């Protein structure tokens, strides 16, 4: 099993005619993902390496029965692209776009919650989601993932998501699904959303969680783990040495005042029974032990 996506997920790519959309859309298709169509306004009737392009998401969904959209468009257009997908009845939207203004992001999030409660947004500013051997939507290189489970991964950071996959795959530990929720202040999907799905997924036996400084998403996840999760969780939090008041690359990764520190997050997670590692390599090693003991 997997969460959010599987071998039957039918994907369209919004922005498929751009260089990024083309590269990653086709790479996802080559991985085995059912990439059925692309959407670029004004380009209907053309195709990208055999993938038909439509003007609107509604048309693409109409013709292909797609239920999922991969949004690869610049920050200026991404909010509208997400809302267009939701309006067209798409149930899962994966948006990798980095640099969407926070005001737009907060608005889109609340419109989705208010008007499209059945649509899930993953991202923005994330590497996407991969269920090894079944479906890959986003920019993760498929060859660093290993199919078969039993570990679920959820991460706020892109390259650290790859690092986590790599550490586990090298040790022969497979993954059910790996979700990059993104490093922005208002991610569409939270740690808790993913943790609760992993808890329900019978094939997922343990979860690796990669957090970073800023906000209190990790602390909230810790509360959820303590109350609701029976499966073991191993965590790593990046940014122990990050100085306060400096945005560490991600719009969400900033320690303001005394809140958002890695220390506070690690303590909260440890209190919730999570094994917290000092770096990604040790997190991988801890997870190998956890999997062995299952």
């Amino acid at each position: 099993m997997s969460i959010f996506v599987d071998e039957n997920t039918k994907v369209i790519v919004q922005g498929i005619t751009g260089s990024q959309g083309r590269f990653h859309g086709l790479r996802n298709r080559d991985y085995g993902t059912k990439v059925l169509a692309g959407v670029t306004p004004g380009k209907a009737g053309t195709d990208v390496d055999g993938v038909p392009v439509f003007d609107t998401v509604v048309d693409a969904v109409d013709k292909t029965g797609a239920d999922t959209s991969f949004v690869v468009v610049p920050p200026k257009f991404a909010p509208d692209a997400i809302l267009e997908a939701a309006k067209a009845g798409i149930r899962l939207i994966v948006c990798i776009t980095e640099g969407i203004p926070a005001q737009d992001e907060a608005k889109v999030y609340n419109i989705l919650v208010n008007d499209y409660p059945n649509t899930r947004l993953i991202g923005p500013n994330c590497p996407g989601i991969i269920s090894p051997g079944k479906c890959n939507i986003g920019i993760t290189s498929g060859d660093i993932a290993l199919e078969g489970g039993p570990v679920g991964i959820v991460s706020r950071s892109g390259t650290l998501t790859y690092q986590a996959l790599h550490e586990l795959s090298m040790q022969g530990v497979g993954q059910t699904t790996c979700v990059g929720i993104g490093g922005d202040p208002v991610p569409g999907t939270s740690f808790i959303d993913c943790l609760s799905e992993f808890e329900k997924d019978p094939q997922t036996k343990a979860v690796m969680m990669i957090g970073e400084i800023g906000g209190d998403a990790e602390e909230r996840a810790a509360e959820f783990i303590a109350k609701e999760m029976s499966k073991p969780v191993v965590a790593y939090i990046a940014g122990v040495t990050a100085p306060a008041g400096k945005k560490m690359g991600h719009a969400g990764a900033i320690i303001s005042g005394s809140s958002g520190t890695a220390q506070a997050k690690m303590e909260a997670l440890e209190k919730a029974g999570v094994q917290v590692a000092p770096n990604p390599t040790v997190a991988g090693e801890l997870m190998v032990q956890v999997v062995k003991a299952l």
Partner: protein
Amino acid sequence: MDLFEYQGKQYFARFGIPVSPGGVAYSVQEAVDQADKAGYPVVVKAQVQVGGRGKAGGIKIAENADQTREQASNILGMDIKGHIVKCLWVEHASDIDKEYYASFTLDRSAKKHLCMVSSKGGVEIEQVALEDPGAIVKFHVDPTVGITIEQARQIVKDANLDAPALEGAADILMKLYECFTKGDCDLVEVNPLILTPEGKVHALDAKVTLDDNAMFRHPEWQEYRKTEELDEREQLAREKGLNYIGLSGEVGIIANGAGLAMSTLDVVNQAGGSAANFLDIGGGANADVMASALEVINSDKAVRSIFVNIFGGITRCEEVANGIIEAIGRVDISSPIVLRLDGTNAKEGREIIASDTSGKVISKPTMLEAARAAVELAKGK
């Protein structure tokens, strides 16, 4: 991007938020000119982005031109917690009856806008939150709906602002929200928001943090970019379009992706060293970006070794390797480079490095081994 007080006040004024009449001065004479225009008495305020200006002597009252001259010459050039004062804001001194607090920011947990108002202004709001949390009224605004004047009136009333201040404060709250949303701010804060003996409410200070992501729809923000307080290394990195933050250690860091870059800082620390910087070369970095990154790190005199930590995704490792070789050829890199390459085309990248004969690059198979090597080199030199 954080604005200076004077920029924040000018930004406020664009949205109709009342501020004291005043102007910017870069010299003593300019300060006197601005004071003459604003009308005495005036307040001469150091423009630095650090708290505690007043205690450090960076805010002074002047009754006339001579006093303005004296205060301005004292404050200009002053070192306030490492920030040298290059600029002053001179404004008409207000009579203050009451000091309040008002702000808007994004509540990341609630995923809604958060309005905070308090009748206890003029002091650090964190302090009020600790000592008297009941004195802060918090109100969540749905970003899809916005705030209404009725809600604003209720908020200031609930915050126990004085009766003569209510209408003026509610009006400012509406304008402040407009500034926050239309002005694409991460934070707008007025502390203190004052009530004058004449019953007028206005902003005596302005703290504004702009959302860098919204730069594309605010071309006028370029002007704020020019006044940002950056050290030489950060300035060079900015010119090269790199995401760089200067730190005080001796191991230069280059990584792709913000998370991995932060993690690299952490493992260097765990290996007993400390990072000279945070530098994320981003996804899809090519040879040119890599070479620029090495140049910036190389300009930092404190750097003793350089740790390049790359996990290729969109970024291809052979491009990174080519960039390193190019940089070594282009600039005299004075510190040894420890390289860890994994991910997309790592094998090709490692082969390129292996064929390099400069002896400046040391390859390590894992992040932790590379961190240890970089720290040892930094200490041994």
